[in-house]
């Protein structure tokens, strides 16, 4: 199988280049990550992040044939059907450190900016805080986020304003804590987001929904944040 992969090592290269690899796959190689590992066996200078190889850790997000996704749950058979050469590039919009490894500081900075933790200063009871199954259900589709950055780095608004726009991943998590009935700071959270840059850079083009490897829907969560803002304003 033929791959064309973005290569850049600041120690050696003056500028990025695309390198071809022709790899003989074994029958046990099912996912793109298996192929990348095989490429690395042949060329140990090729660098990428990977860990759980089952789509829960979020390490191996990359741009695959023009679309962001996780290498470990992208089937080689599906890629073969897309064309003779598989093109692999780092996630767009973030600084490249080396090959497919990008600097994700900006992404995590935005995640941290929404105060990603439950705040409840009422003295806790001896046992768990109660939450009805219905209230808990509100968190479904939110807490499952693996912070892989596929969504935020597919969002043009995040490309243009990564320092100011929270981005789909951050906003999805913002709503995860807004929606949690145990959190007491929903108003402060809404204040934190009511800003033309932080929230309203989202123009609902839904690239984020299209690429999310966990099938989450940041656009819907952003819509719910806006609903709450309207509710408390009018």
């Amino acid at each position, binding site marked *: 199988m033929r791959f064309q992969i973005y290569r850049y090592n600041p120690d050696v290269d003056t500028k990025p280049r695309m390198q071809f690899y022709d790899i003989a796959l074994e029958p046990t190689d099912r996912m793109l990550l298996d192929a990348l590992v095989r490429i690395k066996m042949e060329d140990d200078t090729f660098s990428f992040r990977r860990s759980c190889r089952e789509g829960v850790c979020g390490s191996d997000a990359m741009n695959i044939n023009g679309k962001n996704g996780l290498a470990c749950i992208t089937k080689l058979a599906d890629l073969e059907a897309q064309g003779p050469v598989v093109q692999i590039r780092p996630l767009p919009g973030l600084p490249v450190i080396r090959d497919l490894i990008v600097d994700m500081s900006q992404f995590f900075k935005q995640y941290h900016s929404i105060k990603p933790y439950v705040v409840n200063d009422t003295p806790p009871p001896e046992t768990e805080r109660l939450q009805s199954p219905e209230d808990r259900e509100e968190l479904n589709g939110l807490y499952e986020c693996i912070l892989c950055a596929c969504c935020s780095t597919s969002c043009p608004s995040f490309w243009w304003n990564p320092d100011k726009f929270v981005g789909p991943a951050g906003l999805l998590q913002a709503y995860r804590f807004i929606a949690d009935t145990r959190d007491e700071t929903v108003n402060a959270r809404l204040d934190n987001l009511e*800003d*033309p840059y932080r*929230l*309203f850079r989202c123009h609902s083009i839904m690239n984020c929904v299209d690429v999310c490897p966990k099938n989450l829907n940041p656009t819907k969560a952003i819509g719910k944040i806006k609903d709450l803002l309207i509710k408390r304003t009018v």
Partner: protein
Amino acid sequence: MVNRHVSGAHYGLRDWLAQRITAVVMILYTVLFVVMLLKMPQFDYAGWRSVWMAPLMRYATLLFLLCLFVHAWVGMRNIFMDYIKPTGLRVALYAAVILALVAYGAWAVQILWGR
């Protein structure tokens, strides 16, 4: 070394809402406009003129244009926010858009209520 930035202007909701409301008004106007065209007794200059003599149509059109300007203002500002990084240039462009839209408004009144 440290890349600080300021944010937290605490606006945006009103504009976002305004853009949606104005969009609805513009859709309604478009329907009205098509209906008025279809109802024209004859398809000539006199018919066209009679449409515009009706006060309803004049006020509706003015409302439509005002909505269009608000809609355009929010939209243009969004585009500048996305793509124009230097603050000075962005403010200048904002000003230019506002001035243009106000001028268009005056011009529209002149057209609608002119002779």
